[in-house]
């Protein structure tokens, strides 16, 4: 026995174990400090600094001082700056390798404080996307005539007019040829002058006996019939020619009107309309609403890992290649299930606007399905600088991870809006003062996002600046805004996180309806004129060529008219004078 047992070794073991525990106790503060820094940095995607962490034994817990969380979008500032955080741990659960914090106090949170050194950013957040207001802005301007769609429409219209002009030119040429041939077969001036000669011969004939008189009468009658027949022929041809001429003239007129019609159609299709412009509320508040929605969704994405643990299936666990020497911690059914991480209750105080906003957070865990309770939070404050009262209530229900339901209710009373720019370049409106009372309900349920904001603004005063692009709109808006001291505003959001619609409406829309209509008409008229000028410039040569061709038909008309007049004069004055 003595050969194999070294009793001094037992003492050495005790000494080594005590030394290990001692060093662990010395190092644990630093280990916890680094653990908090690493875990929070992983969630936020940016550097986190903790000044100090102290272990307390009765009850077991930690006091952590000054936690600075870098804002990934602006690394020179902190997204959160917590002065002090203290929490107690459930010891029994700690032996089961679970961190259950029964009570936590987070004191003096400040937002957006400056950092001494810019923090490192490990993961950039996605850029905010606000496509709708940007598109709407273009509705308040005369569309760009050189834009691809408008240029294509101009080409199509141009082609249509050119084809019409070419067809008409061919038709005029055919008619011209036809009538030139036809006119050669009609009684011409020589033939009519023959009648003139016959008349003169008859008038010179001596008035003799009865038979001579009778013969003259017969010749006059024949002459009359001949002239009349030719005259009828000329008149009939002239009538038919006139029909053709009228048709051609009408077609030429239509051709010259084509650019006007096309310009009207293009302007209707691509130009601004009152419906397209939308409402004044969207223009004034739509962009800001879009930014708020994007920002809220990004924050929701950011806190999601705190609410949902991505669990692996057995197959995924088998396929997963863990980092060397780390392996995978397999999970088995627990007789008394408890979350791996849980903050049962946290009292939070946020320093903002010169006052403290008090709040509580309950059941913060990524294992809500194990706990069976949703995370809730409630913050409220009164008489803050610029806010009479605020109340924020939230429920983040991930108890069933397959259908998470998150809901936030925000009530804001007497919020001093101060001075802020609204609208866009086309209508620069400044809200110089206003007090906001609002209620917001926002819900993210699975892949669906819904939000409803109802707000009233009182004691409002606006300043409208003149915009170069739409001086008319500015002048009209100035008049309307000068009579408004309060208004209501409703914002509705619905859709999916990547594809949602923001619907903004307010009673300002009624006041501005006439202004928008007038603006749309003015812009549409300007655009139509531009399109018409562009079209006319392109096809002016074609049209004048066709008009010249049509003018050549006028000679035929004149020729026929002259022959008819001549024949009529022969018939009326000369023939009847013989009688």
């Amino acid at each position, binding site marked *: 026995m003595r*050969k*194999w*047992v*070294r*009793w001094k*070794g*037992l003492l*050495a*073991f005790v000494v*080594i*174990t005590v030394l290990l525990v001692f060093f662990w106790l010395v190092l644990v503060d630093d280990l916890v400090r680094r653990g908090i820094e690493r875990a929070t940095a992983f969630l936020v995607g940016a550097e986190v600094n903790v000044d100090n962490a102290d272990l307390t034994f009765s009850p077991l817990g930690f006091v952590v001082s000054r936690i600075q969380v870098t804002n990934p979008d602006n690394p020179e500032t902190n997204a959160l700056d917590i002065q002090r955080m203290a929490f107690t741990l459930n010891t029994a659960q700690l*032996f*089961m*390798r679970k961190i259950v914090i029964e009570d936590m106090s987070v004191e003096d949170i400040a937002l957006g404080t400056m950092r001494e050194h810019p923090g490192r950013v490990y993961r950039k957040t996605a850029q905010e996307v606000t496509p709708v207001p940007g598109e709407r802005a273009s509705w308040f301007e005369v569309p760009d005539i050189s834009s691809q769609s408008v240029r294509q429409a101009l080409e199509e219209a141009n082609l249509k007019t050119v084809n019409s002009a070419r067809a008409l030119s061919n038709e005029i040429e055919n008619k011209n040829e036809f009538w030139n041939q036809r006119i050669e077969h009609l009684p011409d001036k020589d033939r009519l002058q023959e009648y003139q000669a016959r008349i003169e011969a008859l008038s010179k004939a001596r008035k003799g006996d009865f038979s001579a008189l009778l013969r003259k009468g017969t010749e006059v009658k024949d002459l009359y019939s001949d002239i009349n027949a030719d005259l009828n022929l000329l008149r009939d041809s002239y009538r038919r020619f006139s029909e053709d001429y009228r048709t051609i003239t009408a077609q030429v007129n239509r051709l010259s009107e084509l650019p006007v019609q096309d310009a009207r159609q293009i302007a209707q299709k691509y130009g601004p309309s009152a419906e397209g412009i939308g409402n004044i509320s969207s223009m004034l508040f739509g962009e800001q609403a879009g930014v708020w929605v994007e920002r809220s969704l990004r924050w929701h994405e950011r806190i999601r890992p705190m609410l949902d643990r991505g669990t692996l299936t*057995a197959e995924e*666990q*088998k396929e997963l290649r*863990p980092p*060397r*020497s*780390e*392996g*995978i*911690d*397999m*999970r*088995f*059914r*627990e*007789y*008394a299930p408890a979350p791996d991480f849980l903050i049962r209750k946290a009292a939070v105080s946020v320093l903002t606007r010169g006052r403290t906003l008090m709040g509580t957070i309950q059941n913060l865990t990524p294992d809500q399905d194990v706990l069976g309770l949703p995370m809730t939070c409630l913050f409220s404050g009164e008489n803050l600088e610029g806010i009479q009262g605020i109340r924020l209530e939230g429920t983040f229900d991930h108890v069933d991870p397959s259908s998470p339901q998150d809901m936030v209710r925000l009530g804001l009373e007497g919020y001093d809006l101060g001075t802020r720019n609204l609208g866009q370049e086309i209508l620069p409106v400044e809200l110089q003062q206003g007090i906001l009372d609002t209620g917001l309900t926002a819900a993210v349920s699975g892949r669906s996002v819904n939000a409803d904001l109802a707000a009233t603004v009182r004691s409002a005063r606006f300043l409208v600046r003149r915009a170069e692009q739409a001086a008319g709109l500015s002048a009209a808006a100035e008049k309307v805004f000068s009579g408004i001291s309060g208004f209501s505003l409703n914002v509705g959001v619905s859709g999916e996180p990547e594809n949602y619609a923001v619907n903004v409406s307010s009673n300002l829309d009624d006041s501005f309806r006439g202004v928008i209509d007038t603006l749309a008409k003015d812009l549409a008229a300007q655009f139509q004129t531009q399109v018409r000028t562009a079209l006319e410039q392109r096809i002016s040569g074609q049209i004048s060529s066709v008009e010249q061709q049509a003018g050549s038909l006028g000679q035929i008309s004149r020729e026929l008219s002259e022959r008819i007049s001549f024949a009529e004069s022969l018939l009326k004055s000369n023939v009847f004078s013989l009688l």
Partner: protein
Amino acid sequence: MLYTLAKVLNVLNSEADPSQISLAVALALIAGLTPLMSLHNLVVLLLVLVLRVNLSAFLLGLAIFSGLAYLFDPLFHGAGLSLLSAKPLEGLWTAMYNMPIFRIARFNNTIVMGSLVVSLVLFLPVFFLARAGIVRYRARFLAWMKRTRLAQAIWASTFYKIYASLPGRH
């Protein structure tokens, strides 16, 4: 390198009982192949200190097996995963999962489980093989070596001076 080799020879050529050396190697196998900061290694440390095993052999074995463990991690992970996923053992693992001592021991980690089981399986074979090897080395190789001219030359070399200067040699 020379120092390490000298140390190995020093242990082998010492008067220590071959069983004490081979037990140290077998215990080093467990501590070296499994993650060092595991609860069961506290038991190994206790055994190493309380049992009269050769500490030099243990420390040398620990260094060598820790290096080998890094190479065999994928093997340990596979073995641990297979054991922990085995349906017939599910009841046992579930019962252990609900006991704090096993949770602290991290038995449910694939590498802890795989490396511990592999090292326990190899414990006795390594012990007996090492013991037999040491006995044979001393009886045949060491006796023969002492008679060779090479050994005579080595005794006159710097290497031998280092070897001879090591504590516990005489």
